[in-house]
């Protein structure tokens, strides 16, 4: 497997291999000069047809810390505005010389199509409602390292809260967490729970207060405001009252529970309190681990030529 397109590509030994390499990358990232020559002479192109400053910066930092060259292409500044097709873009960049494409697009399945237009490795950095596999990896990595569970989530009680239906982060995380053995509770209004998510270890509820005392990991999803505007979500205050994390709910968490969020946060909507006041917050650890995990993925794909163990 020379691509990372979906969490379905990630069997348990592959995840363990990536996490072990990510530990190396964390050691490198803690140095005063966080850079190694591993991918010297390789080129990583980030091709984003949908805005995402954080994910793009995380991938580009990862590539640079491995000494790869980086190219950056975003739809708003590119000739896509002149009608150039995605395929033309990929073929042109491939001809310049690219070893890995990091692709984000608002439509599901675009990264898979990209694999047909280039010999380079392709990493999905988020496609529509479909998948965001490096987010799932960095979240699983963060949980295992914070809770000290090795490379597994066996028996770990995780609640994922919010707009499950429209979230590729939720879709990716549910799949990966369950494969690693977590007991996942999805907390959302019924209309935001897609059918077909039930599976071993997965339960569903709309009562956040009931699950808080028992969870080890509280994972707050980002609310997409445009979905509120479209009438798919309860508006502001009502959403916060039912699904937002405020000081009262934070006190219901057990003392060693951790709180995660994929960013960027909507303060006052899903995050009603200041996360700096939340001792269990691991939101910045997620950001740091994101660089380590993306370094590990790029190293495995470009160094070994395969993702798996």
């Amino acid at each position, binding site marked *: 497997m020379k691509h990372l397109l979906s969490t379905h590509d990630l069997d348990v030994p592959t995840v363990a291999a990536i996490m072990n390499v990510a530990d190396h990358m964390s050691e490198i990232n803690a140095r005063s000069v966080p850079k190694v020559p*591993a991918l010297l002479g390789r080129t990583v192109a980030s091709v984003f047809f949908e805005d995402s400053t954080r994910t793009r910066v995380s991938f580009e930092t990862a590539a640079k810390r491995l000494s790869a060259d980086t190219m950056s292409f975003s739809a708003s500044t590119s000739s896509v505005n002149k009608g150039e097709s995605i395929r033309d873009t990929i073929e042109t960049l491939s001809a310049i010389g690219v070893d890995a494409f990091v692709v984000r697009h608002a439509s599901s399945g675009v990264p898979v199509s990209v694999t047909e237009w280039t010999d380079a490795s392709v990493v999905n950095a988020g496609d529509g409602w479909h998948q965001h596999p490096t987010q799932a990896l960095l979240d699983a990595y963060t949980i295992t390292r914070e809770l000290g569970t090795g490379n597994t989530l066996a028996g770990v009680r995780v609640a994922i809260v919010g707009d499950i239906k429209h979230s590729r982060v939720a879709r990716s995380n549910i799949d990966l967490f369950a494969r690693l053995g977590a007991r996942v509770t999805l907390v959302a209004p019924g209309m935001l729970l897609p059918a077909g998510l039930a599976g071993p270890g997965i339960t569903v509820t709309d009562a956040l207060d009931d699950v808080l005392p028992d969870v080890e990991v509280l994972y707050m999803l980002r609310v997409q405001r445009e979905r509120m505007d479209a009438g798919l979500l309860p508006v502001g205050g009502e959403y916060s009252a039912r699904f937002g994390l405020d000081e009262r709910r934070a006190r219901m968490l057990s003392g060693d529970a951790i709180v995660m969020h994929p960013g960027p946060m909507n303060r006052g909507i899903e995050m009603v309190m200041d996360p700096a006041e939340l001792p269990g917050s691991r939101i910045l650890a997620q950001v740091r681990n994101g660089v380590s995990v993306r370094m590990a993925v790029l190293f495995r794909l470009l160094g070994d030529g395969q993702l798996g163990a």
Partner: protein
Amino acid sequence: MPAGSSFVRIRLTRPPMTAAEVLTRDQVDRAIARIAHEIAEKHPETSSLVVIGMQSGGVWIAERLAGHLARIAEAPLTGSIDVSMYRDDISMRPVTPVAPSRIPVDLAGRTVVLVDDVLYTGRTVRAALAALNDHGRPGAVRLAVMVDRGHRELPIRPDFVGKNIPTHLDDEVSVGPEGVIVARPGADV
């Protein structure tokens, strides 16, 4: 052939190999003790040394050397280094990191004793020298190996050697606390 050496015919799925034990457990123990004395003789301030084992085969030897040094003189600092990210053959063959490096101190100005089990082409040592420099510029780096099997591809030379063992290119040398074995494909006893 050293006293106590023996030949064992071992069967693998690959071509048949003949394995010869070239160092016994006792000889390995004595070699490590001797190297520790040589290090202490050359570097009497042993407490300022940093003894660093290369992942994975050099780590146990580095720990044993540090234990001897602590008894002979004063305990050195110890650490381990994984050179995967510095290899010059990444993408030519699978490179799997073993464990994150553990360097206990800024190496700037320090004398480092780099420890590995087998010295062969010298490429792993070259990678280790590059890796060490990213933890500070050492004052000096010395190289200790249990086995020097020859066939260098780079101008690298050990300072402390357990045993020089002439080998063929396709020999397999394995080093452990229980002894050193050289396996040769197809050879007959």
